[in-house]
């Protein structure tokens, strides 16, 4: 009976195992490793990735790239950049046309456009917005016919079941008005908010600094910290609402670059209803704030905000509509970027941003088709990119087989090595030592071979810089006109770095023949201040030492943590340091101001943020800068820029470093991509072929089942002798071992 029962159990186990294996085999056509919901399969969704969680989504506070990738899709400033045209061209977004700019003198009389900047007391930007633009559905707008606003005075009972914004059952909307733009400009000075551009804008927007003081006084009079500060009650001198669709901004003097700020979310509209709604203490305590749940008029709205895992944007059903550009650059026609010309945008229904902290899973999920685009880490560079022809980068055969394509663009950034001009050795303290220090800097500029650096450390992704201005910006010179004559010669139709002999000669002229201080006889030692480095960066530092060693200069690396490094730069205690800059807007002023005297870090009396880390101070350069910054692009401005750059190249306060090239990989189903880092509201132009994506995902991710079968077999094979040993052990008699041998 017992034996029969055991046999039955074995039969059942065998049947179950067989069934499981058959089931596994039958599932061969299914995709098991899909990280997304099955219900989303085949939908018109863009899958993207982010590595750092955004800190702020309030447009008055948000600034960094990882934040603007969200806010730029949600908020609509009055202007935007043309998606395809280069150089970058501003165009109306919510505004009817480009702002009408009028200059006024101190008697409020209008001045002609070509008036001298000194005569201008203030500049007025008049902006008219399009009617019929509506906000995304939001509970802040929800109303009841009898009781008015539904959620503007929430009590504890109403808040009890609210944990996120979607817990509010009712939503509403209203038309965008000029008042909302004015309201947002006032928010720049809000005492409870930290707008990174407040300091800058307070210098320009008329009355903004005083307005900040007014608001602070009002706020200090509040009985409770949660009281709502209604900015509509307090007028700001520099902002004037003409009617529901027109507003004016007054700028002190002339600041032509202001127009670029009008294309950033800082100047996007905020409805007072949202500000009031989010100011309720009960919502703040539940982390429901404007910083977390944006409200805009743009093509997308944020429907899920879990920055630890996933951010989801969905089409704004109230979006007023826009059309894909009908013109672009000649290459755009060839690249198929105008196939959708004139069509209504946005094309994509939903964007899922998944947080991936590590490069390995991010890269592998891209290869499996679960991310539609990817950057290229140094680990995967050789797997992804090969150089063909004359150093032209293209995808490897393996990538090409998958239909992956490479898009490259030169970032409007610069990575440089700065000399602290206050340092006696590299900056000089007297007229004589300044000349000596300049020659030393010029010699080092020649010795540090950035072509080699780009090849070794950036996988060729960069252009050696000849000055501070990045390619693609007005003022940048190409070809022979654009080379730095201190460091390069023009040979065979290309720049060629001067020989090290020239550098040694300059070094000797500087008073350090063969790297020895001729006055003291002591070898020249210079100090390179860097932030704490990982083991991977040691090779870079070794390389830097070798570059200086070419001149027999000993380079000592002073590594410290980021905070101390910043502190050294602020106090002018660094000697040679690494730094970088990414342009805020496509104007050369945004690069050239980095060497403007009043912007120097040490001894900056204005109290404002300073960005001249090298503490470079040249009165001639400063004068030209002041002249240039107020000019419109054109031959006159180019001439001044050329003179400024020439001064900089001669003085060499930086090793000009390089402008990074950005490489991006895109799957075949990802259309209409023209990467750039200036305009950020590009998702609305993208298109996804979701059928192709689904087909490829199935093709690339068929489950491989033999390892499971193998593992099962190994376990069974190992169990058989173990069971046999156990049975033998249990059936043996221990007493036998005690019996004496018969012999």
């Amino acid at each position: 009976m017992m034996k029969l029962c055991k046999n039955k159990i074995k039969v059942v186990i065998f049947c179950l195992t067989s069934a499981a294996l058959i089931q596994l085999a039958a599932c061969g056509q299914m995709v098991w490793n899909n990280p997304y919901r099955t219900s989303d399969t085949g939908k018109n969704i863009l899958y993207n990735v982010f590595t750092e969680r955004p800190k702020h989504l309030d447009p008055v506070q948000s600034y960094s790239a990882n934040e603007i990738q969200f806010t730029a899709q949600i908020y609509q400033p009055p202007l935007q950049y043309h998606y395809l045209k280069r150089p970058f061209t501003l165009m109306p977004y919510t505004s009817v046309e480009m702002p009408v700019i009028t200059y006024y003198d101190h008697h409020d009389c209008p001045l002609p456009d070509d008036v001298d900047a000194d005569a201008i007391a203030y500049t007025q930007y008049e902006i008219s917005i399009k009617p019929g633009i509506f906000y995304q559905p939001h509970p802040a707008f929800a109303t009841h016919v009898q009781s008015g606003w539904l959620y503007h005075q929430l009590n504890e009972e109403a808040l009890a079941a609210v944990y996120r914004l979607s817990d509010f059952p009712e939503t509403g909307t209203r038309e965008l008005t000029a008042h909302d733009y004015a309201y947002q400009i006032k928010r720049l000075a809000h005492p409870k908010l930290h707008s990174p551009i407040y300091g800058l804008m307070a210098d320009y927007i008329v009355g903004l600094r005083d307005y900040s003081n007014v608001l602070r006084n009002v706020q200090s009079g509040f009985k409770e910290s949660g009281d709502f500060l209604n900015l509509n009650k307090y007028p700001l001198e520099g902002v004037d609402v003409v009617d529901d669709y027109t507003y004016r901004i007054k700028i002190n003097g002339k600041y032509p670059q202001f127009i670029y700020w009008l294309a950033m979310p800082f100047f996007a509209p905020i409805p007072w209803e949202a500000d009031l709604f989010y100011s309720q203490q009960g919502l703040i305590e539940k982390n429901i704030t404007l910083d977390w749940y944006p409200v805009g008029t743009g093509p997308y709205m944020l429907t899920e905000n879990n920055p630890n895992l996933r951010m989801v944007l969905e089409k704004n059903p109230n979006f007023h509509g826009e059309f894909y550009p009908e013109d672009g650059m000649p290459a755009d026609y060839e690249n198929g970027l105008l196939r959708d010309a004139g069509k209504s945008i946005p094309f994509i229904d939903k964007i899922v941003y998944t947080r991936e902290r590590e490069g390995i899973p991010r890269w592998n999920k891209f290869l499996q088709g679960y991310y539609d685009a990817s950057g290229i880490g140094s680990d995967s560079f050789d797997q992804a990119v090969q150089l063909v022809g004359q150093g032209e980068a293209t995808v490897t055969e393996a990538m090409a087989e998958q239909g992956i394509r490479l898009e490259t663009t030169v970032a409007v950034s610069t990575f440089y090595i700065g000399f602290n001009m206050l340092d006696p050795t590299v900056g000089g303290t007297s007229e004589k030592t300044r000349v000596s220090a300049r020659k030393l800097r010029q010699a080092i500029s020649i010795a540090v071979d950035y072509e080699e650096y780009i090849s070794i450390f950036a996988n060729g992704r960069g252009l050696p810089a000849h000055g501070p201005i990045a390619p693609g910006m007005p003022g940048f010179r190409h070809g022979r006109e654009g080379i730095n004559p201190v460091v390069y010669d023009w040979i065979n139709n290309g720049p060629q770095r001067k020989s090290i002999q020239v550098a040694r000669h300059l070094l000797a002229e500087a008073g350090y023949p063969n790297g020895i201080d001729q006055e003291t006889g002591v070898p020249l030692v210079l100090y390179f201040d860097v932030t704490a480095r990982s083991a991977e960066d040691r090779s870079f530092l070794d390389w830097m030492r070798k570059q200086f060693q070419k001149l027999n200069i000993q380079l000592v690396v002073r590594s410290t943590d980021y905070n101390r490094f910043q502190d050294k730069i602020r106090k002018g205690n660094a000697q040679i340091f690494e730094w970088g800059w990414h342009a805020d807007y496509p104007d050369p002023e945004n690069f050239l101001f980095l060497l403007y005297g009043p912007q120097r870090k040490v001894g900056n009396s204005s109290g404002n943020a300073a960005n001249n880390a090298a503490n470079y101070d040249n009165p001639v350069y400063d004068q030209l800068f002041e002249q240039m910054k107020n000019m419109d692009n054109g031959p006159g401005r180019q001439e001044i820029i050329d003179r400024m750059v020439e001064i900089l190249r001669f003085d060499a306060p930086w090793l000009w470093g390089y402008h990074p090239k950005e490489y991006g990989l895109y799957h075949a189903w990802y259309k209409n991509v023209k990467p750039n880092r200036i305009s950020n509201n590009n998702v609305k132009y993208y298109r996804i072929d979701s059928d192709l994506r689904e087909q490829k995902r199935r093709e690339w991710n068929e489950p491989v089942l033999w390892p499971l079968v193998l593992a099962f077999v190994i376990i069974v094979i190992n169990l058989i002798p173990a069971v046999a040993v156990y049975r033998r052990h249990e059936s043996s008699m221990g007493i036998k071992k005690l019996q004496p041998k018969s012999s």
Partner: protein
Amino acid sequence: MLSYIFRRILYAVPILVGVNLLTFTLFFVVNTPDDMARMQLGIKYVTPEAIEKWKVERGYHKPLLFDQAQDGLDKLTHTIFFEKSIAMFAFDFGISDEGRDIGYEIRSRMLPSFAIALPVFVLGLFTYIIFALIMVFFRSTYIDFWGVVLCVALMSISGLFYIIGGQFLVSKLWHLVPISGFSTGLDATKFLILPVIIGVISSAGANTRWYRTIFLEEMGKEYVRTARAKGLPEHLVLFKHVLKNALIPILTGAVVIVPLLFLGSLIVESFFGIPGLGSYTIDAINSQDFAVVRAMVFLGSLLYIVGLILTDISYTLVDPRIRLS
């Protein structure tokens, strides 16, 4: 026992104060309040005025540990250390430097961490004990020998290798589970399988060998011989007698980490994209968010103390001879 537990809780207070002071000192040796403000406000265009405003709003404008300008007790209480610490002892973790409620974040991130840590703990404990007992059963045979070799091999490999290797084989080559990600409800299962298996395997070597040593020590004792002499089958000897008597050292290692399961794993969560407390701590350190770092260290030490008390209590449950007094 109650008085014992009460006494242990009282002992915990100076320990927590000490840990808090140490965290505070270490943090502010590396970061100043100005550094923290710059990190939160960004580097471009940040004015000294904005930095000062940020510090005042968050109370970082005060002296760190001692305020010379005040009188009497205010010298100590009118400081960042006192004001930031006192609320925490009332479990009010406050607002993070980026303006989010820390308590809310901890509550919402605890479950994803727990969803991985609990199965790893339970499955791991079960697997290691079973394997250790099997090796003891087959002691001095080839199974025991190769078992020990395997354990040493498993111990010798870095934890990161298991993660990268597991993701490469199971997810990339065989396409059996997603490489990374997380979801809620039953949908989370497919994301948890791989990290749980890796979590169990990566600790298998050390733990199995540790339990084998414990069991072997027990096997030589009189009661085992008595049990065998009574004619008990070997599996009953092992599972009923040896396991029970070996529970004290097992509990010493196991119970103490139970409360810490909520805190998650830094590396596993980072590689598998799990939105747990491990990654929360890493993010806070990277962004110099003292409020979060302090809260997480405080929580970690508190849970460790709770774990130790629970271990003591568990001794009394498995061994009636032990009395807590």
